[in-house]
């Protein structure tokens, strides 16, 4: 069974695509059941990958078919001919090894649950078929990305997930904020993809046989050959390739300096945020770096850079997350921060702990997918209940109204804090342990840096616990309060989000176009239908600030706790995935982690990982204790400050106003980008425009003037509009040319 499945592993990407195609081709005819084919497709894919996971031994590669093959002639087939020989082979080949099957199983599992959740969450949206089509397309691209066995194919799917991300962030494309965010994500990702593409060109140029398959590239021989090729600035080709791959990874995985798109990507529907912008796609960069870790391991300087960037990102994002009031944005920054942890792990893969560190990073990727998807879906559930409001200042104390959501969210939060025995603890601990080991390794040149990173990471873990606790307590504890348009915070939100494109609709949350707004009518004109959910589920939100709430929900929060339309728990189709994911967030750490080492053994079956350095590693009680302590302290502080609405936060922010303000404004990164990049680009563009209009166009006009002079009278009559006249000239021309060549030549 598993053997034939491994041979036909292309089925795993194909099934979700088929489901998506059925969903969109069925359209309205499916009558709101469009999610069924997609869920079925993803579920089948998960089953297949689980079967492969259980029955797999070693690594396999299968070639589905070879799309383009431009092979060298026998004379040019010399492998050492380098850039002068030419060859391009584009096989559609897939591989099954530990890394791949881990990612496949994780992606399809989470995606299946998120799809089920989305089936409840997106009910009634006019773009329902489109949503599930793009959803299927995304799962197709993502599974293709992780199962492809060839850099070129990986790149194609890499772009595929980018496109799907774009389509899903801008799913409500009639909403300007969403359109802007989608554009931003797309452009920022292009910056990174540019690096990836250049890295591919370099690989193609310098790799032996111009073969871009993993089996060819990820070998010691190829690595040495690349390392011995001098390229630019005294650095080897290997250095540049790895650096550019890292550059590509920073964009996709939202690291400094290209992380800015991810928080804005929260404009998309929440299931999308959960799946794409938390669990799967953003980890593609980590996957890529892990996949090429053999190459990375040969460049210690770059590894240091990776670790430092990851550390800086983790710290910065955690600092920003401290003060954000938008629940989804807190989670988004936490995602950025956690991926920073993964990068730290990748960067710590030096010396004999290389394999251990990479496995740690991948394990964090694995566990993170579960609890972050859980947190996002939980926030989606909250948002669903609050009628699209996601600002934490406008609701609180929801634990009685939404018990399932509350407690599953709590489990996710504990996992994120890294408290034992939740999943996050095991994986974070492995990363910290590898950082510490890298610091103490005498073979590593600058171990001090790693020690520093270790302490910063521990501090970041504390911050993580703090802001996670803050979000949880703000949402679910304290006095019960539901959103109302009269809430002073609702208006105040506008001021603070002023820099954002979403400012217009902050009061109405990010998921729904404002009712009665021109955007909504345009949106509905575009979608051709009305979204019933807004009216029926969220009357509180349907009253705009200009129109006093006629329904009376917003005034006395304490008295209408049993309102059947508003602030209720989500339906089972949404809570069941939450519970499944919560079980995962508790269990995967113990099942797969250090207690069993299942995960480690699985990943070790990846061929190129066996070539990495590996030594013995005992469970490090020191990091475990310090990490747990950091988590407990952070959580405790959060409980102290937010569980029952104290004045401490305000006082603290009054104590260090510049820092708090900077954190509130996300450290002005967007503004700096605007100043450093957008403005100069605009200046250059203006200059180019003037050059184009006056110089180039002038030349063109000059050039055009001459033939007009010649052709005016001489050639005009020839164009008589009759096709046969033209054909006569052509035939005569050919005949005369042949005759002339015959008798003159």
């Amino acid at each position: 069974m598993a053997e034939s499945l491994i041979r036909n592993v292309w089925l795993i990407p194909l099934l979700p695509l088929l489901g998506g195609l059925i969903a969109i081709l069925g359209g309205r005819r499916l009558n709101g059941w469009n999610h069924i084919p997609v869920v079925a497709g993803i579920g089948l894919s998960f089953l297949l990958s689980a079967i492969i996971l259980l029955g797999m031994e070693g690594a396999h590669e299968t070639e589905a078919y070879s799309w383009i093959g431009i092979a060298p002639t026998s004379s040019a087939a010399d492998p050492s001919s380098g850039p002068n020989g030419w060859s391009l082979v584009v096989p559609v080949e897939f591989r099954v090894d530990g890394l791949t099957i881990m990612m496949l199983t994780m992606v399809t599992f989470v995606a299946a649950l998120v799809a089920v959740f989305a089936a409840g969450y997106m009910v009634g949206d006019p773009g329902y078929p489109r949503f599930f089509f793009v959803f299927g397309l995304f799962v197709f691209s993502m599974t293709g990305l992780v199962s492809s066995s060839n850099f070129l194919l990986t790149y194609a799917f890499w772009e595929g997930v980018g496109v799907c991300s774009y389509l899903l962030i801008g799913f409500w494309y009639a909403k300007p904020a969403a359109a802007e965010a989608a554009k931003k994500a797309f452009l920022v990702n292009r910056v990174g993809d540019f690096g990836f593409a250049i890295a591919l060109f370099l690989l193609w140029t310098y790799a032996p046989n111009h073969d871009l398959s993993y089996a060819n590239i990820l070998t010691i021989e190829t690595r040495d050959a690349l390392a011995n090729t001098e390229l630019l600035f005294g650095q080897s080709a290997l250095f540049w390739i790895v650096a550019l791959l890292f550059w590509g990874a920073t964009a996709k995985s939202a690291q400094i300096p290209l992380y800015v798109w991810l928080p804005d990507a929260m404009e998309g529907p929440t299931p999308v945020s959960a799946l794409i912008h938390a669990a799967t796609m953003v980890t593609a960069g980590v996957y890529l770096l892990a996949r090429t870790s053999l190459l990375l391991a040969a460049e210690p300087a770059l590894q240091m850079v990776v670790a430092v960037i990851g550390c800086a990102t983790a710290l910065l994002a955690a600092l920003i997350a401290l003060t954000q009031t938008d629940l989804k944005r807190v989670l988004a920054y936490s995602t950025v921060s956690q991926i920073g942890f993964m990068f730290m792990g990748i960067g710590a893969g030096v010396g004999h702990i290389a394999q251990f560190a990479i496995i740690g990073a991948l394990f964090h990727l694995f566990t993170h997918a579960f609890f972050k998807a859980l947190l996002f879906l939980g926030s989606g559930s909250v948002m669903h209940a609050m009628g699209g409001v996601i600002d934490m200042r406008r609701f609180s104390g929801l634990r009685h109204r939404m018990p399932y959501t509350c407690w599953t969210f709590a489990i996710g939060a504990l996992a994120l804090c890294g408290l034992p025995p939740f999943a996050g603890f095991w994986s974070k601990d492995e990363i910290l342990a590898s950082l510490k080991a890298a610091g103490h390794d005498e073979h590593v040149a600058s171990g001090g840096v790693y020690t520093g990173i270790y302490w910063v990471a521990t501090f970041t873990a504390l911050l993580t616990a703090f802001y996670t606790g803050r979000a949880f307590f703000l949402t679910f504890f304290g006095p019960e309060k539901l959103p109302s348009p009269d809430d002073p915070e609702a208006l105040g939100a506008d001021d603070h989000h002023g820099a954002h494109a979403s400012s217009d609709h902050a009061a109405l949350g990010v998921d729904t176009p404002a009712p009665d707004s021109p955007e909504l009518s345009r949106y509905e004109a575009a979608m051709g239908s009305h979204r019933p959910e807004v009216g029926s589920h969220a009357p509180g939100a349907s009253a705009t600030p200009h129109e006093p709430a006629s329904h009376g929900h917003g005034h006395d929060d304490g008295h209408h706790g049993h309102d059947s339309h508003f602030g209720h728990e989500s339906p089972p189709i949404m809570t069941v995935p939450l519970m499944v994911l919560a079980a995962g967030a508790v269990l995967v750490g113990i099942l797969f982690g250090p207690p069993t080492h299942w995960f480690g053994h699985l990943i070790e079956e990846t061929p190129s990982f066996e070539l990495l350095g590996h030594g013995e590693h005992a469970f490090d009680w020191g990091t475990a204790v310090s990490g747990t302590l950091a988590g407990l302290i952070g959580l405790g502080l959060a409980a102290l400050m937010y569980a029952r609405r104290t004045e401490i936060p305000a006082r603290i922010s009054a104590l260090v106003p510049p820092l708090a303000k900077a954190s509130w404004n996300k450290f002005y990164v967007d503004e700096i980008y605007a100043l450093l990049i957008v403005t100069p680009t605009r200046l250059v563009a203006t200059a180019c425009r003037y050059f184009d209009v006056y110089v180039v166009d002038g030349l063109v006009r000059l050039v055009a003037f001459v033939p007009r002079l010649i052709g005016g009278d001489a050639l005009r009559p020839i164009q008589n509009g009759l096709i046969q006249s033209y054909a006569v000239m052509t035939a005569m021309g050919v005949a005369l040319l042949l005759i002339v060549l015959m008798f003159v030549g």
Partner: protein
Amino acid sequence: MTLLDSRDLALIAAIVALGWVGIWLLLPHRHGGVKTARAYRVGALLSAIAVLLVLPYLTPPGDLLARLFFYSFSLLALLGAVLMITARNPVNSALWFAVVVLSSSGLFLLAGAQFLAAGTVIVYAGAIIVTFLFVIMLAQSHGQAIYDRSARRPLAASLTGMLLLGALISAIIAPGATRKDGDPAPIYSVGAIADQPPADGPIAAVTAQALTETSRLPRPLEQGETPAHVAGLGATLFTDHLLTVQVVGLLLFVALIGAVAIATPKAPIRPDRSTASSSPGSATTNPGGVS
């Protein structure tokens, strides 16, 4: 002057001249006037002589049966072509074209291209020409229109066509494959080009990129042996020329959509003619949409 001897030159000139006059006489009059039967007879005679003059350039291939078939197919193709372009009735034109297609399918068979022979008959004779017959019959069910009975500048057109023929024939028979070593190598001679092996001719770069081993016949054929045809062609199509197949499939798909989009009966462009033109026009457009 060095490449063709005077005998060939005279023969080609004769073909061109006879064909010119003959086809001019056979073509309809410029203003649709009626030509005398004698003019037709003279034209037919001259054209027939021109066609027969082409025959000396053909080399009899293979055994008796093959020769018989080859010459009959060639003659049929040429006669069919002449009759197609001179027929007054477009239905006859289409039928003569069917004759041309069938005889060139026969020539395909003789060249060992069985799949193409069958495919050409199915596609051309079975579908395209029949569809054309449809349109002709629907558009001109009554008699011959003025534009069928009048040619556009028949003298100049036949001169052009025959000059093209003469130039092509002289380029083909110019010594290339049979030239001696001392002679200059003419690059415009088909023989010279064909004689160069693809590996180092002027098309070397193209063939080197486009051809892998599968696109050749497995080995040189023995005398009289027929290659396993369809399997080899299929293997080539789906390995070396896979992209070609995909592009061609896309082309067909686009053409299908385009034809449907164009031929679907639309509201008349001129609103003032909406009542008058819809009723007689719709009858003619429907079968086209179907076919």
